């Protein structure tokens, strides 16, 4: 996993702080999240303390610090979805899973990510679980979907 980060860093020889965001983006693209090991490597490469990297990374919603769960739930917070109540959808899902956006549940099964428009405005408000879209949601419906995945796990296990 570190080697992924190292590969990214070789593309930025002698880089400074200004390259932090693009590097974080590439590392997340490669690893799926920003690990502590990655931060250590990036910090050494750029001469930036870990607390600063974490600070910058958490300023933007796009970075996650835990691997994605088996079920990765993307909640659209684009304009159309916002107008149709996506804030409520997000809250319901967060509450049902007892994690917040950007986090992964302890059992590693679920993770939530907040995204801007995922291009299905007609179905707003939309969530997307492992590539499967669920549209025209209500809070209750969203919770039901989460429950159905939980149930699927409980019965089939892995």
């Amino acid at each position, binding site marked *: 996993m570190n080697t992924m980060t190292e590969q990214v860093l070789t593309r930025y020889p002698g880089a400074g702080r200004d390259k932090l965001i693009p590097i974080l983006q590439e590392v997340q693209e490669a690893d799926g999240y920003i690990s502590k090991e990655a931060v*250590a490597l990036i910090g050494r490469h750029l001469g930036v*303390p870990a607390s600063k990297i974490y600070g910058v990374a958490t300023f933007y919603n796009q970075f996650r610090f835990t691997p994605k769960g088996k079920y990765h739930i993307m909640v659209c917070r684009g304009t159309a979805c916002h107008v149709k109540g996506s804030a409520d959808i997000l809250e319901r899902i967060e509450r049902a899973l007892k994690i917040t956006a950007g986090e992964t549940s302890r059992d590693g099964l679920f993770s939530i990510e907040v995204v801007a428009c995922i291009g299905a405005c007609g179905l707003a408000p939309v969530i997307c679980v492992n590539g499967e879209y669920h549209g025209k949601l209500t809070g209750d419906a969203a919770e039901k979907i989460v429950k159905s995945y939980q149930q699927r796990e409980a019965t089939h296990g892995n």
Partner: protein
Amino acid sequence: MEQMIANGNMIPFEKGETVLTALKRAGIRVPTLCHIDCLPPVGACRICVVEDTATGQLIPSCSFPAAPGLSVATHSVKALKARKTIVELLLANHPDDCLYCDRNLNCDLQKLAEELGVRQRRISGERIAQFVDNSSPAIMRDPEKCILCGKCVRTCEEIQGVSALDFSGRGSKCKISTAFDQSLNLSTCVSCGQCVMACPTGALTERSSLREVMNALQDPKKTVVIQHAPAISVSLAEEFGLPAGSDIMGLMTAALKKIGFKAVFDTSFSADLTIMEEATELVERVTKKGVLPMITSCSPAWIKFAETFYPTVLPHLSTCKSPQQMLGAVIRHYWAGTQGIDKKAVYSVSAMPCTAKKFEAEREEMLVKGAPDIDAVLTTRELAKLIRMYSIELDKLEPAACDLPFGERSSAGKLFGASGGVMEAAIRTAHYLITGRELGNLVVAAVRSGVGLRETALTLNGLTLKAAVVSGLGNARKVLDEVAAGTSPYHFIEIMSCPGGCINGGGQPRGIDRENVKRRLAALYAIDAAATLRVSHKNRAVAELYEKFLGKPGGHTSHELLHTTYQARTDLL
């Protein structure tokens, strides 16, 4: 000097100064929250706004440059209202906890609210419940009391070069956190407490040991003794409203006896002891081609800094324990026996100007046969609380002397309280050990003032020793980079974590106030100038301890009790 106008009067300023600096010189106080005197302004909180009388606009005085023709009103209704609103906004999601808060009656935020006449919660914000981080042996963080002024972040980064903390998140989720929001004990925090000194609220405090000490005092099976550090007698007074730089050694000792400590010892005694051990170690390293430069080891935050950021430098650290630990060790393993007390029954307290001493006391490397040298460490602030708690009125006490045998000290030991002091004490003794003569007038002026790097060299019997002194961990980095690279020109380096040394330690009366620190420093040098015993090697009590118990400096017993080891750390940098 140029002139600007404040409240209708001309006031002088130097080119490049801020309005705040000019106002201060003119004796006009404007409150600040996010401003740190010795660092560049950030203008984040805007509590320092004053009204530009020409435009009617509010300008932040801490960051606005003074200019000729500028005219400000510092306490116009507009300025006062703005300040009040800012405080109200800060309080909007602040817990109403003053009565239960470590900072009650000593809180910048509380004081501002009172001064500006905040009498009701006009603005209410959403409160986010957050956990108190009490994972560190030294520092407690209560994020709910944080007003996001950023002082801790800047202190930790710009003064200490540690960067354990930073802002994370955004908007209403913005908070101060370590990397990955780990608890403080897993972070690079070195427990120096400089952020505690800077914090305007109760969000950062020391982890208190008052309760343990009170319980021990009441336990009939325990013999509770206390030692106090060289830098405390010249700072404690401020906690009782006396001017900075007052030396209340005798009153403090009397107060501690009245509280019930069976013996009150002076850590300056073991500073003398440290000098004997450390000078011996230095001579050994120099003559036997040991690892040089040797670096002092009495500042525990510096130790953790080295372990974390400069693990390759660890062989350069003196193996000497700090004076606190040395005294703790001889109290338990020697003094207890002389009193006919079981060494396990001794409860050893230390009063220190330092938060990192709490961390040091808990280090595994400090255990002697499984027993800690020190059971509890109190900061200067906690010591003041203890004195108040026991309803001691300092002004009604007769000064008392410390108990023997660890009450006798040289003023060289007392100088440990200031940056440069260990070096000065060591040079006095090294001079004597190598030449058999005392050093001229004993003053080593080259290392005496300032926080940045100071150097000196002395030639003794044809041997030239180069020495350097630096304080503030950020300042230390350059010196350490040289040591790590093998290019350091020195034989001996003194490093203290806090800028100016222990007189400005993280356990001292709150605030980053250079003037107060200067006064504490002057008090230490005055004590030295007036002292008759000014060199560690003439401390008879130390000599006697060697005769009766330790043998010789650097000997077997010393190594068992007074020396220690270090560990490289792998925290996320």
